[in-house]
């Protein structure tokens, strides 16, 4: 700790500037909250919180409810998580436990590079590669063999929940894989060697000493990935199909909260329309904050347990 009395004059100024900047960030968040709430007030005063539970979106008749977008957001984010988790875990295990030094470096670097690709590029890739492939190959195949499941019913259009989920899955993989890798690296070597010394194969060692002791960390990483998927806008907008509906089929077009905002905010037709969009933004902010804090708390606690046991 630096005591304030130890600082000379210019350091003092520097200290206060930094301090006010840091608090400014928190202040900004508070202002954002108040502003969003104020701007969405017309819709809240009209129908209250039931806004978030109505499945209705009609700017012409001015009937607004956010349920379809909440559904689309959660469905794509969960699908992304389900698809990304095995890939992320697999690559984190490969990097920390299995590959040789050279492969480790290259693979770790490539995964981190995925995080640097702009969202719009993922969107283009989704639109021109993923969507056509889903339309002509994957969805007809799934429809033929698993079409009896509600998940795979309906015409193979390409755009929709499935395309959104896949693009999101790739986008959240660097987040989850990198955090999992960090967690695996904190596991003391003596647990891994303990398993090997008992005659565990590499895979058994991973189950015994790596996965088991990082379960809550993996959970934290997943939630953080989920948070990223919830808020992602551009790439999803391009492949989701932009239709306000709730369908159990992954083939159907849908809409997420973030992509609805991107689509309609510029051309909101009335005050109540604008208020409804803002209320969706408010809900998204709230959910992201909660989900992110949850993930941070879990990850922080995991780190603390290991720091103590070392």
């Amino acid at each position, binding site marked *: 700790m630096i005591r304030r009395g130890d600082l000379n004059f210019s350091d003092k100024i520097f200290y206060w500037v930094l301090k006010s900047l840091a608090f400014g960030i928190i202040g900004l968040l508070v202002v954002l909250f108040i502003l969003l709430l104020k701007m969405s007030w017309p819709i809240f005063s009209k129908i209250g919180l039931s806004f978030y539970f109505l499945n209705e979106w009609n700017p012409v008749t001015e009937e607004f409810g956010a349920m379809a977008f909440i559904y689309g957001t959660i469905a794509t984010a969960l699908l992304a998580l389900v698809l990304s988790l095995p890939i992320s875990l697999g690559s984190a295990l490969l990097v920390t436990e299995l590959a040789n030094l050279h492969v480790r470096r290259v693979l770790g670097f490539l995964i981190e590079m995925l995080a640097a690709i702009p969202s719009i590029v993922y969107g283009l890739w989704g639109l021109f590669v993923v969507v056509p492939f889903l339309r002509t190959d994957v969805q007809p195949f799934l429809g033929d063999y698993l079409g009896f499941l509600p998940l795979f019913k309906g015409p193979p259009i390409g755009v929709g929940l499935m395309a959104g989920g896949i693009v999101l899955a790739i986008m959240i993989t660097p987040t989850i894989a990198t955090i999992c890798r960090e967690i695996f690296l904190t596991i003391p070597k003596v647990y891994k060697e303990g398993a090997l010394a*008992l*005659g565990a194969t590499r895979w058994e060692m991973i189950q015994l000493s790596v996965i088991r002791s990082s379960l809550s960390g993996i959970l934290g990483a997943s939630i953080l990935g989920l948070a990223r998927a919830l808020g992602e806008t551009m790439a999803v907008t391009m492949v989701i199909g932009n239709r306000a509906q709730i369908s159990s089929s992954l083939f159907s077009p849908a809409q997420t909260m973030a992509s609805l905002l991107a689509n309609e905010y510029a051309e909101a037709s009335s005050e109540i329309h604008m208020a409804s969009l803002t209320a969706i933004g408010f809900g998204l902010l709230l959910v992201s904050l909660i989900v992110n804090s949850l993930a941070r708390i879990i990850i922080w606690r995991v780190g603390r347990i290991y720091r103590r046991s070392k």
Partner: protein
Amino acid sequence: MPNSQVQKNTILEVKELNAWFGDFHAVKNINLKVEQNDILALIGPSGCGKSTFIRTINRLHEEVPGARVTGEVRLLGQDIYKMDPVKIRRQVGMVFQKPNPFPGLSIFENVAVGLKLSGIQRKSILTEIVEKSLKQAALWNEVKDKLNEPGTSLSGGQQQRLCIARALAVTPPILLMDEPTSALDPISTARIEDLLQDLKKYVTIVIVTHNMQQASRVSTKTAFFLSGELIEFGDTSQVFTKPNKQKTEEYITGRFG
């Protein structure tokens, strides 16, 4: 007394063993034999290669990236470097410096891990062997009413005995211990030293220790390592009372180390 020695079985035989970390030659040309029911103590100053040597006996050394071994290690006559390392490790128990019960596993599960890895599933068999192993490790009375509690909930000394039980459960012919008491308090240390005398009946023991009193108390044979070389190897009473090498004498009389 050579005659009594002849009847003993050789459990472990090491011939011209060398171990490297990359270019660093950590263990140099070791030759020694360990007979049934021996307790071999490895002594020597820190960094002399005791851990490295003991880890070549269950092929754990090669898990370190860049590590390498040459020479022969024969366990019950089989050349372990010509076999599957996983199979070898199932026949060699190991206890580490820091107690390492698996996080998230109960006391029972910790002891049963090795059995499960070798494919034993039957609950009745597991229960029987777990009890026997915990008794051998002198831990049964303390834990018999809380077998389902996490292994990590025990005290340090208990955790170390749990790890001993875990290693004994698969009835290995040999048990390797790398400074098993150096992280423990004096009372826990004394309990484990007593335990070793009982264990001798079931299993041959190789123990690394930096504590010379411990070596002279618990072992029947002593090997003195210095800078990766085996300087002297013989009966513990002889090594501690009339060492053949001057270096050994200097070390045990505390002139360096």
